[in-house]
């Protein structure tokens, strides 16, 4: 029964192969992708229940013993991450079907997109399940290489420009990761996380701090923590909407997951908590100030993404059960909400051919469904009660106050200020794009290349430039037909998911608390990996 831990990695890879085989048939590609991802969602749900009831689910790949071979483990944290990420991936895939059908017609196969998307999903699953530093690296590489392809899809000038920055930064972070793994192996003679848990404690503190710094640098680049976050807001907005959405939801969270895993398992009592807290404070504040200064929806969202990574890091840096529990809860909340917002930004771009706030207006009246789809997750992101964003932030703030150090109080203050500024940035988008009346004409000469050339799947201008519409009720009927159902329904599904997280917040928080206790206990993970056979 434990063998199902392998499925979230193997199935998408198999699906990617099948998609390539059926490259000429768009219909077959869609069926395969949906079937595979739906199956992975089911497997993830089963894993979540089993990990919660029976402890970590382990499998040793190929039957090699754990400290020689590769193990995959699904404990509570991994299983929750896996479930949330696969649900989000499935919704984004459905959205991309809608967009692909609208732009290229029902039969045009996106021969590269589907296989790459499935490989990305396999890489994310591999990173979440890996119980081995080197396999974690391989998982990272799988998802990074497929993200290189996705971010430069179509190879237009804007995407090559932003993709170059993303790719160079990611390549360098991968090399740093390799150096970190080499140092870990040289110091301890193993790369298995469970075996490392005991051996790192025996090292002199200087060596273990060096290893920790190397690993943290790597993961902080991937997670876009402040001094290493400059690549993200520049490279994300130009990709196609579904790609940006899935990147925003998953890739940075894989980095945060790796930070949580290594911090709790390898370095439980470390000297670098103060450093992490500072990084969290700066990430929150600097990120949100960037968002406030922007005037493009996608760029604002990219900056809030950076900023809210700070919340998760804050929880990890506090390191108490409550802090970790809040951080895990916040990841689950943030994956859904941030992905939804990027999908909505894609819809805004589809409808108005721009996401520049200076050119948008009157959307609340012209497209009320779109306005609701933006409003609910936006308020959720800003942390308005009773949404899950509020509950996550509340847990983190409580954990920070319980820590009783002056720096924690600073971090709590930063968290609250960031929350308010998020509300400000979101309110700016709402006021200017949705609330204010639509203007019929725009001042010429303001066209300074703000357009992000991003929305369509292959970089061609798939959306015909629409003439400005007046906000009469007749136009509303017209517009409702224009928003394609294939893109609206998946977005609504994700909005429903984010609201559902609020409804089940009680049980979910209890679950994340159990996950945090399991992380701090460490013994369950270690015995499951080293004691269990495949």
């Amino acid at each position, binding site marked *: 029964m434990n063998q199902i831990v392998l499925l979230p990695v193997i199935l998408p890879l198999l699906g990617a192969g099948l998609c390539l085989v059926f490259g000429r048939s768009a219909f077959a590609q869609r069926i395969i992708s949906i079937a595979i991802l739906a199956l992975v969602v089911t497997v993830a749900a089963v894993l979540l229940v089993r990990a919660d009831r029976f402890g970590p689910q382990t499998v040793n790949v190929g039957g090699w013993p754990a400290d020689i071979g590769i193990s995959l483990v699904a404990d509570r944290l991994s299983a929750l991450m896996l479930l949330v990420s696969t649900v989000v991936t499935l919704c984004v895939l459905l959205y991309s079907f809608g967009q692909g059908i609208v732009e290229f017609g029902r039969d045009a196969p996106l021969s590269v997109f589907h296989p790459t998307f499935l490989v990305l999903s396999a890489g994310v699953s591999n990173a979440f399940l890996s119980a081995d530093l080197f396999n974690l690296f391989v998982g990272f590489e799988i998802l990074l290489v497929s993200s*290189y392809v996705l971010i430069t899809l179509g190879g237009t000038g804007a995407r090559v420009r932003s993709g170059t920055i993303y790719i160079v930064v990611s390549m360098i972070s991968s*090399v740093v990761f390799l150096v970190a793994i*080499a140092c870990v192996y040289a110091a301890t003679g193993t790369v298995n996380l469970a075996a490392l848990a005991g051996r790192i404690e025996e090292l002199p503190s200087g060596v273990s701090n060096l290893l920790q710094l190397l690993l943290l640098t790597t993961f902080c680049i991937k997670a876009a923590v402040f001094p290493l976050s400059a690549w993200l807001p520049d490279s994300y907005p130009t990709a196609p909407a579904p790609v940006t959405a899935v990147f925003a939801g998953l890739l940075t969270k894989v980095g945060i997951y790796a930070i949580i895993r290594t911090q709790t398992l390898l370095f439980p009592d470390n000297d670098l908590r103060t450093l992490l807290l500072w990084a969290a404070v700066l990430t929150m504040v600097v990120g949100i100030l960037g968002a406030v200064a922007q005037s493009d929806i996608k760029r604002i969202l990219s900056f809030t993404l950076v900023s809210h990574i700070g919340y998760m890091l804050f929880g990890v840096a506090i390191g108490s059960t409550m802090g970790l529990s809040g951080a895990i809860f916040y990841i689950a909340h943030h994956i859904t909400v941030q992905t939804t917002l990027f999908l909505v930004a894609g819809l805004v771009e589809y409808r108005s051919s721009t996401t520049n706030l200076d050119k948008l207006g009157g959307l609340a009246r012209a497209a009320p469904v779109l306005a609701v789809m933006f409003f609910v997750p936006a308020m959720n992101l800003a942390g308005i009660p009773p949404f899950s964003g509020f509950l996550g932030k509340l847990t983190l703030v409580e954990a920070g106050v319980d820590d009783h150090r002056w720096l924690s109080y600073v971090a709590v203050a930063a968290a609250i200020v960031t929350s308010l500024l998020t509300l400000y940035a979101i309110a700016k988008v709402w006021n200017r794009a949705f609330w204010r009346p639509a203007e019929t004409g725009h001042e010429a000469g303001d066209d*300074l290349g703000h357009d992000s050339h991003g929305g369509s799947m292959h970089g061609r201008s798939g959306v015909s430039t629409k003439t400005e519409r007046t906000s009469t009720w007749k136009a509303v009927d017209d517009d409702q037909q224009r928003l394609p159902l294939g893109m609206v329904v998946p977005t609504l599904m994700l909005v429903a998911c984010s609201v559902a997280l609020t409804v089940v917040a009680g049980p979910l928080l209890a679950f994340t608390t159990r996950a945090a206790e399991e992380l701090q206990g460490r013994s369950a993970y270690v015995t499951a990996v080293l004691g269990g056979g495949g």
Partner: protein
Amino acid sequence: MTPNLPLVILVGIMVAAGVTLVLERSLTRILIGFVLIGNGVSVLYLVISGPAGTAPIVGLSDDPMSDPLPQAMVLTAIVITLGVTSFGLALAYRAWQLTGHDDVQDDVEDDAIRRRAEKDETSVTFDEADAALPDEEGSDRPRRIAPRDGTP
């Protein structure tokens, strides 16, 4: 374990040369730098695998054998570096097709600000009082000539 000093020095030289190249502006040089760093790190895996021994097959000989695990890892790393490098080369070629050069370009916002400066426009938040201050360095930088027709 005593590390092999010549190998360590070799790693240092390769990584240092690689870092210098990565700091360049042209994507081709960045890629060559990346290959150098990658190869340097591969040599680092030879350092951590300890002294060389016989082939790691049980029962072949009684002499101490090499540690096979770092070799398995470094093989994976080499393959990944190869794949990423070829993707990077394709990207550099595409950039050259599109713009006539393969320089890593500036941030969109920086670009917008520079264009505003060239047009001598001010942004909404611009303060007249600051206008007397000297120009930012870089505004007098020569403009890059970028043919946009895409023909090689």
